[in-house]
């Protein structure tokens, strides 16, 4: 696909709404299209966290496989959302599995490329931090609510 | 803060209900069914006898051990002649008076609610199993009651419970059956108790309405008399044939002076006009923590309070016959179980339970029933083993609102 088309897709993705032109062009250098069939893994627990995904269509389940319990999903993500946060910090390894639950189209960003560009351009780095932090906070908040097991019987 | 106030007002608006009660309700004007008169002690005995002949069970104050209680009486000799009470926070003692007044005391641990809203009541019985299962309400034959010696604060308390049990969408048939036939002989207080604050709550000391007859104990010359006023048609009917004579102007003034003197010697006071808003503004005031350190959650206050009405519904099975009964008993919001839901209590701290009781009594009662829940009788102060005084608690919150 042409760079211009890809740049437009990146810019139009809700996650990057309002991103200024220069930053957009820097990002698109790390971007490419990705597609996963239903049942296909985006990444596995323990793999190197080299890519992150901006979902455009479909549904991805985050989970882990526990002995005796099988594959457990604790979060699903859909279009407009971002998959992959462990690329942000060392040791840059995925903590869980991510599997497409249905046909999923995404933009994948090369995490190494992105980290290098952020080191070189701190303004870009700060822009990205401002976007990833709310996602982290919201997920933490939601996870805590899940932990409370409010639908269970207590006492 | 405004939002809370608005919320509370919405509930308040729904609480305005008619008191469906007849002539003996607190809402009526004093009827001059018979002219004011005076009775001697013999005349008072004649009143008790007349009530007995009419089939009433006469209840009045009497000394039992170290306190004055309300029990069935048949004679003026049963009344606490020459006795008074000395009351303070967490303290109640009987003491001898210098005279032979029959009603020279304030109120004790009993209130009239034990007769109108009994502590334990069997509601229904279930018998049989399967298709033979049958549930029937427990029949009661209730003897009509006549209360002698109802204080002004107690008249107000009865009026408050009338509104709770008779003024809502659902009427309590047990309360109604007892209340409907009840004959009230009020007594205007000649002595203010150490913990009384009926003046602050505008509930006394003068009985102004809601009684069938009212007595004020006076001295006229050397005579020991009872100034008698009729407050209802029935009161007039019963008073009519009693051995009495018309009251003189001097005797009328003497009767008025009695309650004026009592009003001037209240044991406690509490500014009541703004207490609802004050407490609503201070749901998290540190004073609640402070009182929780002293409060034992024993529930004495709810037992002695003449307006507290909460009950628990319980089922018990008879293992032998297989029948089961549903009973209703007095409950207290101070128990942990009171607010039990989903395996735990909503109000698990003593702090939250004391707050619930006081807020209900002085604030949310207005929203639910249109009046304060407190009549200023002081019982909760007297009978608290930790000597907690709600007038002091309210005052402390008011003084340090920002605290």
């Amino acid at each position, binding site marked *: 696909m042409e760079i211009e088309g890809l740049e437009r897709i990146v810019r139009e993705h809700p996650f990057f709404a309002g991103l200024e032109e220069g930053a957009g062009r820097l990002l698109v250098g790390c971007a490419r299209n990705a597609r996963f069939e239903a049942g296909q893994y985006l990444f596995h627990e323990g793999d190197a966290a080299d890519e992150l995904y901006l979902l455009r269509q479909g549904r991805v*389940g985050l989970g882990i496989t526990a002995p005796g319990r099988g594959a457990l999903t604790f979060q699903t993500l859909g279009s407009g959302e971002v998959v992959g946060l462990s690329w942000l910090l060392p040791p840059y390894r995925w903590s869980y599995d991510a599997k497409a639950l249905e046909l999923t189209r995404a933009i994948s960003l090369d995490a190494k490329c992105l980290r290098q560009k952020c080191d070189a351009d701190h303004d870009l780095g700060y822009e990205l931090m401002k976007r990833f932090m709310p996602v982290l906070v919201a997920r933490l908040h939601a996870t805590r609510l899940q932990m409370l097991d409010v639908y269970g019987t207590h006492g | 803060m405004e939002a809370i106030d608005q919320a509370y007002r919405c509930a308040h608006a729904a609480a305005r209900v008619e008191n469906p009660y007849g002539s003996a309700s607190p809402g009526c004007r004093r009827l001059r069914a018979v002219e004011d008169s005076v009775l001697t002690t013999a005349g008072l005995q004649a009143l008790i006898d007349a009530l007995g002949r009419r089939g009433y069970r006469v209840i009045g104050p009497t000394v039992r051990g170290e306190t004055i209680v309300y029990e069935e009486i048949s004679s003026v000799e049963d009344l606490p002649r020459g006795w008074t009470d000395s009351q303070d926070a967490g303290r109640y003692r009987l003491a001898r008076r210098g005279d032979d007044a029959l009603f020279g005391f304030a109120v004790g641990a009993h209130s009239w609610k034990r007769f109108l809203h009994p502590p334990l009541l069997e509601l229904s019985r279930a018998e049989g199993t399967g298709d033979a299962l049958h549930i029937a309400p427990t029949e009661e034959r209730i003897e009509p009651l006549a209360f002698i010696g109802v204080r002004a604060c107690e008249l107000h308390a009865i009026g408050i419970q009338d509104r709770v049990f008779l003024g809502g969408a659902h009427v309590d048939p047990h309360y109604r*059956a007892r209340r409907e036939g009840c004959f009230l002989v009020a007594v205007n207080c000649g002595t203010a108790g150490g913990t009384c604050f009926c003046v602050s709550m505008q509930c006394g000391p003068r009985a102004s309405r809601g009684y069938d007859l009212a007595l004020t104990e006076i001295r006229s010359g050397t005579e020991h008399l009872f100034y008698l006023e009729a407050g209802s048609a029935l009161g007039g009917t019963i008073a009519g044939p009693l051995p009495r004579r018309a009251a003189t102007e001097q005797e009328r003034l003497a009767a008025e002076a009695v309650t004026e003197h009592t009003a001037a010697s209240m044991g406690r006071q509490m500014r009541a006009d703004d207490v609802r808003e004050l407490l609503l503004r201070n749901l998290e005031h540190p004073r609640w923590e402070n009182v929780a350190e002293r409060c034992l959650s024993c529930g004495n206050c709810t037992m002695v309070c003449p307006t507290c009405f909460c009950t628990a519904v319980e089922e018990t099975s008879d293992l032998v016959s297989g029948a089961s009964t549903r009973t209703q008993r007095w409950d207290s919001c101070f128990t942990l179980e009171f607010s039990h839901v989903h395996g735990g209590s909503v109000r698990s701290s003593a702090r939250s339970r004391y707050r619930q009781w006081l807020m209900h009594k002085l604030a949310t009662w207005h929203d639910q029933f249109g009046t304060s829940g407190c009549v200023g009788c002081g019982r909760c102060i007297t009978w608290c083993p930790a000597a907690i005084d709600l007038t002091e608690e309210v005052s402390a919150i008011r003084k340090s609102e920002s605290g």
Partner: protein
Amino acid sequence: MDETASPVALGAAADPMLPRLARVQRRRREAPQVWTLELENGGEQRGPGFEAGQFNMLGIPGIGEVPISLSGDPADPARLLHTIRAVGPVSTALTRLACGERVALRGPFGTGWPLLEAAGKDVIAVAGGLGLAPLRPALHALRAARARLGRVIVLYGARSPQEILFRRELESWQRGVDFEVEITVDHALGDWHGHVGVVTRLIERAKLDPARALALTCGPEVMMRFAIAALRHAGLGEEQIFLSMERNMQCAVGLCGHCQFGPLLLCRDGPVLRLDRLGGLIGRKEI
């Protein structure tokens, strides 16, 4: 009044604590420890109907009585459905009743969901766990009045796929055109391909138009608090949000004092309440 005062005999008329007996017609297991009991409403002498959101007191003589929301279609009052989770002695005994046995019933009591107000609006129902049961009558009524409404969105959160209540019905609504249905679970095994995560996330994704929205929420109090926060964040005002509150309930007729929630008696002023009537009480501890 009579010359002599006569004793009063207390009769059975107008005794709000006296139950009637209702026969169990049908029972169905909805989820682990959750059963729906269908009671016959009166037989030859039909009992009163009910409003969506109301509850009955169901009792077993000798054991006790508990408040259970009606979970059936209010347009079919011959059948009184109650969805019960077995958590204590009374509810467990209720879930063990066989067809043909009778249960002691009082009611219906309480306030219902504001269905009349929904005309012309987008309705969003946010339910969690057992909270779907008191909302189900409203959903049936909304379906019947579909033409008068805008969007109807149903968001439901359960602990796991096995604990989804009325699953077949929800999934058939999901496939249909009347409702937009999203179901989410807190955690799931591999064969669940639906949403996993808290139900509050789905509120954001619903892209509500705050000018037209009316929200109905029911579930554990914690879940309702978070749902309310998400609805407010989406632009809804307090007067557009309704919830169903729960407290200890004994007499259900406003005479025993147990169900107090601030100035409100939930058996009479609730259980369905408009959020602005609570004056912030829902966030307060131990009220």
